[in-house]
């Protein structure tokens, strides 16, 4: 077990996985709360375009991915605000536009192999520059979600009452959308764009079967997200599998285990603080 930590690329990979694993559920819990669990997927489509653009123009694909994802997040929020019916089709246009533009840029740049790493994740190739981007973005997102947790909870629980309480709903909505986008941008480096939503949503889906309070759900899902990501990278190392899909499959197994536990009543009836 020790030899893993002697490998420079594994140390970086494990640290990246830990950062992303903790960050993703901290925002994912609000997406689940709002029943927007698939929003991460949508943003991911546009992040793909950002990554391809970064490779095409020779800038950091993580940074360009985060920028594109943030613009998409803000755009989606504008559409959501305007109402549902027109928004639905407009969302589809944004997503397909993102994929198409990304694919076009990929072919033009001839860097298909590198793009593949972003689609399915390539945490083993994380370099120091990537790692520092992940750390800064992760700390910012977790800090924002922690500092304004009660505001975001009130917003996502009942937007109308939050608005009629005088909460700055619009600013918070944009903050949430951009935080989600930044998280997608950093998460794709580890599990890949196609599995980004899994890391945002699955830890929350697992722990919420066993928790009673929102606070406990937030803290437990962040801890579990970190543990699953690190465990997945380690398992992938020893099983010689790809880390992104390994993390997600372990998380799925944990989900079914939690479902079994919750059917036996664990967490629902136990008294004491949750």
């Amino acid at each position, binding site marked *: 077990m020790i030899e893993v930590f002697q490998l420079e690329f594994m140390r970086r990979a494990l640290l990246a996985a830990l950062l992303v694993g903790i960050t993703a559920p901290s925002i994912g819990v609000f997406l689940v709360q709002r029943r927007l669990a698939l929003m991460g997927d949508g943003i991911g489509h546009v992040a793909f375009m950002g990554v391809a653009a970064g490779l095409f123009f020779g800038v950091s694909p993580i940074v360009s991915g985060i920028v594109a994802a943030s613009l998409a997040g803000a755009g989606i929020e504008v559409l959501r605000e305007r109402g549902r019916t027109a928004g639905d089709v407009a969302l589809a246009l944004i997503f397909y536009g993102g994929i198409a533009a990304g694919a076009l840029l990929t072919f033009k740049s001839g860097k298909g192999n590198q793009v593949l790493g972003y689609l399915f994740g390539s945490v083993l190739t994380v370099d120091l520059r990537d790692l520092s981007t992940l750390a800064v973005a992760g700390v910012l997102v977790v800090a924002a979600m922690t500092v304004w947790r009660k505001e975001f909870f009130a917003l996502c629980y009942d937007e109308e009452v939050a608005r009629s*309480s005088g909460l700055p709903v619009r600013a918070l909505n944009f903050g949430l959308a951009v935080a989600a986008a930044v998280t997608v941008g950093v998460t794709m480096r580890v599990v890949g764009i196609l599995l980004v939503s899994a890391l945002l949503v699955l830890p929350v889906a697992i722990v919420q079967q066993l928790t009673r309070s929102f606070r406990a759900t937030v803290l437990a899902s962040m801890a579990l997200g970190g543990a699953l990501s690190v465990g997945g990278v380690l398992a992938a190392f020893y099983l010689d599998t790809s880390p992104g899909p390994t993390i997600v499959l372990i998380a799925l197994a944990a989900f079914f285990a939690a479902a079994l536990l919750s059917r036996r009543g664990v967490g629902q009836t136990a008294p004491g603080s949750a």
Partner: protein
Amino acid sequence: MSSVPVARIHDCRVTLGQRKVLDGVTLDVLAGQFIALLGANGSGKTTLVRAMLGLLPLEAGRIELFGTPLERFKQWGRIGYVPQRFGAVSGVPATVEEIVMTGRIGVARRGRAYSANDRDAGVRALDSVGLADLRRRRISALSGGQQQRVLIARALVNDPELLVLDEPVSNVDLASQESFSETLGRLPESNAVLLLAHALGVMQPLVDRTIVLDEGKISYDGPPGPEHVTGHEHHHPDPHSVR
């Protein structure tokens, strides 16, 4: 001070899509009044309160809350709002207390945990609906009637002077309706209540003024009459209101 109406609605018009939902509604809500706002589905009741709370733009007209024009009104803690909801269950687990505390969000300090004062207010509000003992329960473990009372507690958490309730009892059983009406009966005399409903039902003894909305216009404003207790179908033979 008590002469200033709690809410003053003057000639309000709201159009949603192509439809005139409110067509010139004028009314004053006075301190201490318990008003039942009745009307069929689509009569404009919910639109009226949403416009009053600044959740919908007015096409024309004026609204004042506690003497301040709506656009400049900031003291949202003076109003408690219970929107029409099917239960209080959250997308992610949450305790009864966590839900009630969201009512405190406009009053509590931003970016900090709730203060001891905030928490006390939460417990008091839960106590007033008889649910203080259940405050650490998961909200989904409560019955529909109890969840409804949690939402009332959330609206009461700032000791509001005006309580707005949008069809609070339309989805709960009779026993819950009665305990709900008891809860409202215990509110201070000085509180104004605006209760939206299809009919007065068990609330009848509490109500001192009935307003009936019909297709975006006020068709009755006065003391509650027997025709308001079980429904207004006899009053307005509107095919949409007949079940």
